[in-house]
């Protein structure tokens, strides 16, 4: 499903040239639950963002379902992302002045999907937060907020879900719950790629990709 060949990403921060990703080669199959681990600054989030089409790579090839999307223009990349990728962030990335329902509705509005209510309620029920649909994110616990973010990622029915430290801001029990959610979604056939430094989360995934110093190493 996803294939990366010799992917490099360089940053210039304050005039200093940094090689975030040096030579990444990886293949991810459809329906896999993958963890990307690594120390802070190793380039794991950068890799996730490249996979999600949120950042351009400096060089290399990115194949998605056999199509080379490395040279996509910003608008082509936007369309690609809209059709194929959903994001879950460590800080939940919910709009605080919008209700749970409105937050989950947003990706559907962006995709001009009609009959949204049924889809939204279905996903909220799946995540067990249907009764909180009218609450604002800040009126909910961290776990509930992350469930809301997962529901938002699910409503668009994209084949790939990218999660950047989804349990980073949660306690152990809540992390466990969220992980179970991911497993259940994965069973439905979604490809899930999780960036984490929590080995308990990583060990529950099908495969671990370890990144160190911008280079990739398959662990399992």
């Amino acid at each position, binding site marked *: 499903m996803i294939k990366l060949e010799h992917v490099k990403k360089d940053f210039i921060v304050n005039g200093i040239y940094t090689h*975030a990703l040096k030579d990444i080669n990886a293949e991810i199959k459809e329906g896999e639950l993958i963890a990307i681990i690594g120390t802070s600054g190793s380039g794991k*989030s950068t890799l996730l963002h490249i996979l999600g089409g*949120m950042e351009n790579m400096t060089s290399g090839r990115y194949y998605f379902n056999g199509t080379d999307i490395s040279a996509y223009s910003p608008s082509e990349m936007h369309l690609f*992302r809209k059709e194929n990728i*959903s994001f879950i962030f460590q800080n939940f*990335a919910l709009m605080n002045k919008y209700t749970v329902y409105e937050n989950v509705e947003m990706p559907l*509005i962006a995709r*001009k999907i009609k009959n949204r209510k049924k889809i939204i309620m279905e996903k909220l029920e799946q995540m067990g937060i249907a009764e909180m649909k009218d609450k604002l994110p800040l009126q909910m616990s961290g776990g509930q907020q992350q469930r809301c973010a997962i529901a938002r990622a699910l409503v668009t029915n994209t084949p790939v879900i990218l999660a950047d430290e989804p349990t980073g801001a949660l306690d152990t029990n809540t992390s466990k719950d969220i992980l179970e959610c991911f497993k259940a979604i994965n069973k439905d056939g979604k490809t899930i790629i999780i960036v984490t430094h929590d080995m308990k989360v990583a060990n529950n995934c099908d495969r671990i990709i370890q990144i160190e110093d911008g280079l990739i190493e398959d662990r399992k």
Partner: protein
Amino acid sequence: MILNFAFDFLSKNIRKSLLSVFLIVVSTLVIMLSVILSENRDEVYETIDTLLVCGVEQTVELDINYGDDMGLEQLKEMQLKISEFLDDVSEEAEINCIGSYSTGGYLPIPELYEIQKKGGATFDEYLNMTSIHKNAADMFKIEITSGTHPSEMKFESDKDYLYLGSGYKDFINPGTEYDVNGYKFKVAGILDESQIFFDDNFTFGISATSYSVTHDMKYEILCFSDYHTSRFLLCANEGYNINQAIEKLYSVAEKYDMEDYILYTTLNDKYEMANQEWLFIKNILYKLITIVCISCILMLICTHILDLLSQMRNYGIMYANGFSVSDICKIITIKNIAVSVFAFLISIIICLLAVNLVFKGYEDMSDVFNRIIVNIAIPLSLAVIVLITVFITLFSIVILRKLSPLRMIGGQND
């Protein structure tokens, strides 16, 4: 969809939206105010120029001051002398007309007083009238709807002639005569609704607004009489300039041994002198206006930058969830346009109310609206608002395009 989000952002951040509206309203009003004030000077000049048949350039104000230590007999003699002198002067070719005018309480005519009360009578029981010497019948632009125009009237010396405001037209007919304690009055005509006249505190050129120079005449009365006050206006005849008229005035005054009693100032000089004072005030005013306007614009830009920063996370979330950068830019643009249009409409309403007040006494309000508001104030304010909106919108778009959604949301690159 985009519209919904734009208005949603506005309503969910109502305080910031209102602050932006307030700042735009203040800067727009300040701009409009400066235009109105500067244009109003010309309105004052034009109002007076229109009201004087010979125009400002051809008119001089005279002060015939013969002292206040005269006995009654001497005073009567002096009045007679002045009257003869004025009759002589008005016969000269260089002089179109000379005459005095004054406003005050006159003998009671209850029938007229009852009507004047509707317009807010100034004196108890006494009629408020503007008295004009019969010699000055051609001096002021007077429009009537019925009766005989003052310039065509054959004035008799034993009575005074009244021209009543339009408020009297349904109750009093021209030709009606009154006798009050031996003083005879005759209604000679009814003034047109548009008729205005100088205020009694007419200080030409100094007043900031035409409202304080003139007033409408709906419930007022003009009285043409043989009575002279000490303040006169003299108009030069066509083909002569005002200096020639003054020269002639003094040569006639010499014959009457009165040249030392007469002081004069041309209305044009008064206007210029007043303009010098006005220039000084205007200078300070414009500096203040510039400071207020620039402060408002800077505050507006700061408010928008703060708003952009506080909304950055939301824009990033939208971007990460399927909205394109151009969608987000459209939302920002619509938001800014909506705030600007709303603020502009409020400014226009306030401005129209203010103009209505400032130019209350002006003859042709639609002309004022067209010349000052429609042609200058609105385009100028609109241009400033458009510039601010375009600048703020472009600034937001440039910032948005430079940042990745992750940076907007607050993600890290490791």
